[in-house]
């Protein structure tokens, strides 16, 4: 079995009949419509790209949080209340 079929036509298409299918106006409308769609698509892509870049910049340029100092490295004690107590005792004995 062949993949194609050969047919023989007895009559030819008239020019008028072919002309009836001609519609340049419709072709142009379809062209402008598809151009618009293409432009919209490109715009969406550009916006997405800009958003992606903005997100990436925000993530990688985030200012580093100050490191919490470990208690072992900084063993400071608040002794102000001891000092005030000492001063009070001294004043009592002097007075």
């Amino acid at each position, binding site marked *: 079995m*062949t*993949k*194609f*079929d*050969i*047919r*023989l*036509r*007895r009559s*030819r*298409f008239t*020019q008028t009949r*072919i002309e009836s*299918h*001609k*519609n*340049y106006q*419709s*072709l*142009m409308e*379809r*062209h402008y419509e*598809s151009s618009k769609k293409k432009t919209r698509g490109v715009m969406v892509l550009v916006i997405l790209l800009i958003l992606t870049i903005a997100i990436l910049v925000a993530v990688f340029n985030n200012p580093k949080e100050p490191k919490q100092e470990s208690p072992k490295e900084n063993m400071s004690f608040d002794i102000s209340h001891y000092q005030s107590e000492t001063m009070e005792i001294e004043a009592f004995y002097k007075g």
Partner: protein
Amino acid sequence: MRITIDHKIIEARKHISQEEIRIEFETVKQAVKNPAKFQILYDRYFTAIFNYIFRRIDDEEITADLTSQTFLKALKNLRKYSFKGVPFSAWLYRIASNEVNRHYQQTNKKMVFSFDEREFEHLIEQGVEEESAYDIDYVIRQMHMMCESDIEALELRFFESKSFAEMAFILEITEANAKMRTYRAIEKLRNLLKRRKG
């Protein structure tokens, strides 16, 4: 049905000169800037493309759709068109051929070659000796033994009167290959018809 081949009936070839091809390319360049200029090319080639597609589809409505689709694709991709020394129509034929192939892939229908009777006589002229008479139905049956690409080559050469350079451009092969494919197809047809004579 029997037909007698009259070798006096030879259609005038519709080749255009290099100068005309260059002028046409200028129109294409203008159409890139201003799509309204594309109408010149649309009007010039609509009938030819319609006939070419109809020969491969044999359905008027589908042919009208595919012809419109061909011109729309041409208009969309006009910026990509580059001058290769062949008429602009060759590019349109290439797009049309791709559209037809896509149609058959999508619909899964059997491919059709619908030939006009007079065109067919002209084709047989190339494959037989002078003053021969052949049963046209027999010729068609024999042609079913040929491959699709052979019929396509014969169609472009004898029904569309394309030069080998144009055929090469449309079929995306080299000019030498286009010549070889055509001569091989003619030879096959000749052999198939000789078998009948013998």
